[in-house]
């Protein structure tokens, strides 16, 4: 298992390198630093000096990949690629447009993001899996039919609607919770309860329907017939036999996102004024702060790969075929 993990991690390196090259190409090759400077400074009436100054302040005045003017290893390290992309491997993300260190900013914002995303994830998973099991249990009945109809309707509603309407109803009309804001510690509860609830509700439709399909597909398998032939009740069949097998495809979709929970939710955080990584990203996008976007892309892919590894590990929990292989 240890050797497996090491190999898995080793495989992550070329992927991250690919991500790195891709983002680098996107940010520095599609547009030259000059273009960016011109755009940041305003396209009209911009002097060459202003551009040069802008570039120098941000370290964009170096060559992209190879610095012929430097000595020794600096030929490679004194370049934009090394300074802006390769350094991310060691957690050095540089500074944002406002001069703050990105790595430190991320560290402080991870807390609120996690406080929002983790409960949403857990509650959502519990609710959807139980609802899907219920629909699978009563499959073929009216309740099942209308449940599926409700799911399709719910997944046809824009996520923005849930947020905007929920915020208006509970915060503005009913005044149950504050509209937005965040506090540390236990008092975070009153700020988080609404976004968590909305986050859960917004995801119900598609997840319930998907899990129900998985359960029903599993119910059609031969071993379920065997279980019934033993005289087991439908509840035992569902919980003991079907659920355990259906966990395998469910985990595939679920575990991979767990590490990405740290990234927070773009929409929720920005609507509810929660100072997490999601709102950080949105602010960066709106302010066209490329350094922050680049850093978030990199962290996002690191977390995705971590998710893939976690997924593989989680299989060993539910699938003996993997465990003993």
């Amino acid at each position, binding site marked *: 298992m240890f050797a497996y993990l090491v190999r898995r991690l080793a495989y992550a390196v*070329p*992927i991250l390198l690919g991500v790195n090259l891709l983002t680098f190409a*996107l940010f520095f090759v599609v547009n030259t630093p000059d*273009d960016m400077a011109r755009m940041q400074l305003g396209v009209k009436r911009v002097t060459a000096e202003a551009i040069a100054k802008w570039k120098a302040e941000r370290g964009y005045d170096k060559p992209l990949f190879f610095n012929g003017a430097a000595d020794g290893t600096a030929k490679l390290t004194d370049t934009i690629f090394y300074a802006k992309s390769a350094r991310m491997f060691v957690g050095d993300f540089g500074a944002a447009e406002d001069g703050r260190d990105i790595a430190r900013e991320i560290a402080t914002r991870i807390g609120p993001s996690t406080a929002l995303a983790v409960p949403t994830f857990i509650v959502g998973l519990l609710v959807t899996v139980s609802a899907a099991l219920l629909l699978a249990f009563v499959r073929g009945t009216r309740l099942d039919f209308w449940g599926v109809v409700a799911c399709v309707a719910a*997944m*046809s509603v824009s996520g923005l609607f849930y947020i*905007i309407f929920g915020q208006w109803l509970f915060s503005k009309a009913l005044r149950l919770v504050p509209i937005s804001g965040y506090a540390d510690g236990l008092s975070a509860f009153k700020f988080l309860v609404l976004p968590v609830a909305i986050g859960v509700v917004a995801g119900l439709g598609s997840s319930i329907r998907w899990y129900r399909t998985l359960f029903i597909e599993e119910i059609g398998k031969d071993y379920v017939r065997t279980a019934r032939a033993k005289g087991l009740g439908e509840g035992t069949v569902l919980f003991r036999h079907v659920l355990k097998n259906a966990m395998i495809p469910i985990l595939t979709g679920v575990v991979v996102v767990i590490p990405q929970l740290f990234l927070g939710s773009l*929409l929720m955080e920005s609507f509810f004024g929660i100072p997490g990584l999601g709102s950080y990203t949105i602010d960066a996008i709106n302010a066209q702060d490329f350094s922050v976007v680049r850093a978030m892309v990199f962290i996002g892919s690191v977390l995705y790969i971590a998710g893939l590894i976690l997924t593989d590990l989680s299989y060993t929990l539910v699938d003996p075929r993997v465990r003993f292989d």
Partner: protein
Amino acid sequence: MPFQPVLLWSDAVLWLLVGLLATLAVVSRRAPPLAAAWRKVGASRVGMAAATLLAVFALIGLADSLHYRLALPAEPGKPAAYGVEVLSVLDGALSGLRGRNEKTYSAPLATQSYAMETAILANGGQQRDFPPLRYGGAQLKPGDSWMADVTMRGISGVVAGGLLWWLISTVLLWNARRGAAPGDAIAQIEPWRGVRAIFMKRPPGSFAWDAVLATLLVVCLIAGKLTALSAGYHVFGTDKVGQDVLYQVLKSVRTALVIGLVTTLVTLPLGILLGIAAGYFGGWIDDVIQYLYTVLNSIPGVLLIAAAVLMMQVVIDTHPEWFATAAERADLRLLALCFILGVTSWTGLARLLRGEALKLRELDYVQAAQAFGVAPFTILLRHILPNVLHIVIITLVMDFSGLVLSEAVLSYVGIGVDPTTISFGTMINNARMELAREPVVWWSLVAAFAFMFALVLAANLFADAVQAAFDPRRSAQ
């Protein structure tokens, strides 16, 4: 010529897509297994009701994709000159709605402005009051009842809509009867008795005429009522700059269609080619393609799109000389967004097709072709592609609704369409702050959400029917 046709890039692509879909329809008619699956879709009431609604949306969107520039008043001796504004056939049809702008917000069917204004009275005094709208209810003379006017218009609109439905259904049924076998249920219905067709007892497995006609009836009644009312009022109110919300909602349809369809034009070739090639050839080709999509997948979708859109913005902003008109610029940005969405979302399809091709290549008929020494590319084209086509069709219809929904989110995040392009996303984005006003300005939001819901629900239901017909195993019965 009183107008000059204009072909925007997105128009070209959209019409190209219409052509492709038509080709696909012809191809599937000729391939019995596909034709049988489509017949199953045709027999599904829900599926056909959704398809009818989608067709109505498609008509709106396509009418909005025939662009032209109007000729300016001719000056003798000079070559004909054309206006800068690029209009569409839909704009032409809705010229009433498009031109009648109020000053600012007004509620649905209102005759007065939303905001109080200080008016100077004839006697020199000042009075704060809601000023009457420029157009909304302008036909009312003092003393006329607003209620009576609205009711009258509503009733006449419904009646007109009913007549329109009768006309359309007669034409449709007459046309369908010509192609029907004598035993078909549809052949028993007189074409002008559309209502009977709705209630007829359909033999199971035959085309769901009842659902199509019933949906059309509902659409016609609503359209008739909206048309009649919109002649005298802003049915869905107006927005901050006084533009009619109904007009905006109808214009948004095209944007949604372009995003939902054109994106797949990018996804399909990438997904199909790379997916099938990875699965069929295996080996290093598979390794490279898998690496490619793991890299793309590993970047969180929104961030990748954000990064790409930001970069595209830089390109557009630094090259203003590329675009003759604002419309062209907005149009190209829309297309670029589709392209970016496509490039970032082909991985799902590719992975599905890879898995399928992996199974297919072990099948005996592929082996039989190999035993004849058939060239690999021919095998891909003759044996693999046709047998994964159902997956492609399912993915195409399933992705559509997701893309329409994501447009709204992307516009909110600020990486969506050009702010001047009317879309559900921009409408919601512009209107969401207005919920904080007192009284609440809700109509823009509600109209945008309602239309988007109708479009996406129709797409989802249609996708369900398609999936049930093409992939009975996966469909949740």
